[in-house]
């Protein structure tokens, strides 16, 4: 089945609770280390939703700043990553929803450019398919896109997504479905070949 686990780039090292406890005491160096571990992931969430580096940078920074301010309320027994990603997603969506962002118009595409190091599916999907998918993601409404990113990339539950975006789980379900269906339509010409090749490669 489809999901690959989230890459453990920002993975919870064994001492994460320790770092967070230190950070809660006001230890900036400890928090900086936490930021270092999660920055890629948080920036990734932000960029995938807002689709412009400058804004994603703002959002990512602000997410960590808010996490820092709210550390007292954070349950150290829970993973930090999903929490800070939820904050980032909320900030990102609020930005995209804001009248100002609408005035400016959404930046189009090219937030994600194919890298030289393709992931597992990157080997299957050619550059053209990636471009098409990227454009299709850009073409989603911001709220659909946020729901989709949080599910497909962050693998959050509907409940978590609902909480992050301030909508109901039912809305999460329908938005996610519409987003997926739209993306599937765009990607369909490429998926057939990909799945064929994939089966051939893996079985």
């Amino acid at each position, binding site marked *: 089945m489809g999901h690959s686990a989230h890459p453990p780039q920002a993975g919870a090292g064994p001492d994460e609770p320790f770092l967070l406890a230190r950070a809660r005491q*006001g230890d900036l160096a400890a928090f*900086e280390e936490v930021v270092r571990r999660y920055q890629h992931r948080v920036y990734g969430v932000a960029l995938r939703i807002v689709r412009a580096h400058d804004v994603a940078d703002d959002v990512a920074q602000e997410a960590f*700043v808010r996490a820092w301010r709210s550390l007292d309320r954070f349950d150290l027994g829970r993973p930090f990553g999903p929490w800070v990603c939820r904050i980032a997603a909320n900030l990102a969506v609020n930005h995209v929803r804001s009248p100002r962002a609408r005035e400016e118009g959404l930046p189009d595409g090219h937030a994600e450019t194919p890298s030289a190091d393709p*992931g597992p*599916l990157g080997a299957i999907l050619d550059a053209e398919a990636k471009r098409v998918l990227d454009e299709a993601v850009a073409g989603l409404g911001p709220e659909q896109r946020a729901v989709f990113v949080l599910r497909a990339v962050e693998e959050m539950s509907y409940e978590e997504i609902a909480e992050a975006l301030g909508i109901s789980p039912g809305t999460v379900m329908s938005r996610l*479905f519409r987003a997926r269906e739209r993306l*599937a339509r765009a990607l369909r010409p490429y*998926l057939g070949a990909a799945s064929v090749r994939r089966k051939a490669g893996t079985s």
Partner: protein
Amino acid sequence: VSAHERERLSAYLDGELAPAERATVETHLAGCPECNAFLAELAAVDEAAAALPVDAPEGYFDTFPARVRARLQPAGSRVRARTAALQVRSVPAWTWAVAAALLLAVITPLTLRQARPAAPAQETRPSDVSSAPAAIVMPPRQKLGVEPAEPKAPAAPPPASRPRPSPPAAVRGSERPLAMQRPAPTAAPEARRDQPTEGRFAAEPAAPPQRSEFALAREQTAADAETEGAAGGAVGGVLSPDSANRDKVERTAPRAAVAAEAASPMTSAASAGHEATPAGLKAQADSFRRLEAVRPRSAAGWRSVREQWKALAATETDPVRADEARVRAVIAAREAWRAEGDVDDEAAFRAEALSYLRRGDARQKPRVEALLGEAPRTP
């Protein structure tokens, strides 16, 4: 297959169906190639999207943690007074050097003028600070090491890409208003944050009345040292401080930044050039500069900025600067309205503008009238 059924497949993929529904779907899937294919397609879409790389500019992540940390320094007092000692122990050694520098920054101008000792500026304790308005100690919402790219057209709202993180709309239901969230920074972080912008302050203390609201921000980002020097001289000429008044303010204002600002000998600093007494002038310009730098995206953020300008106007003894601060409050009120189009914000903006226009000492009535005049079509 109906849309509803496809939606259920999507939820099935995520393991979000209740057991009974899940069983139904599985039964159906067992005999329906079409639905199996659709399910596989949805899964492939997720996987492909997750595999799309996220690229940031080269070196971006090398500096990111430090930039976040720099923003945390002032808010370090998130941990209240009870843990202040712990916090102090955890700051790196270099901050002490910076603290010493700030101490000089405050003392030097005072000594030069043979005025009062600098004690108030250094004695601000976290407990005092929690009751102080955030206006004066608001940290700049700018990122260190990244300069704003483009001047803005005066009437346009700042683009989202402006590299100053603004206080975005609150995380749902959990945040207090901006001004309340910002405990005052300690002296050391103050100084550290200011370092990267050192040398700019000379141009900033006040804007000539006819300048547009974004003119100063533009100068801040674009001006080179020479124009800054010139502007600093010009502004200094306008703003001869009244020593008696300033001392009075200093005694009555218990906050570090106010004290430092009020104590700074603007005339001498300006005539000597900003390199001569950077620290004093810097302290003086800080409040204005910081507030100018704040460009929130949310109405709540702008409301907070408005209140901070008003607070600044109330404590400012120089009539030109106080006047400018009042105009800025009007502008911030207008931005709050522009941000979200709230009718309450519109009312607040109009009230703010009218209140300004009714003042006998208003120096920039045309500017504010223009703001009012163009207001109806902005949001």
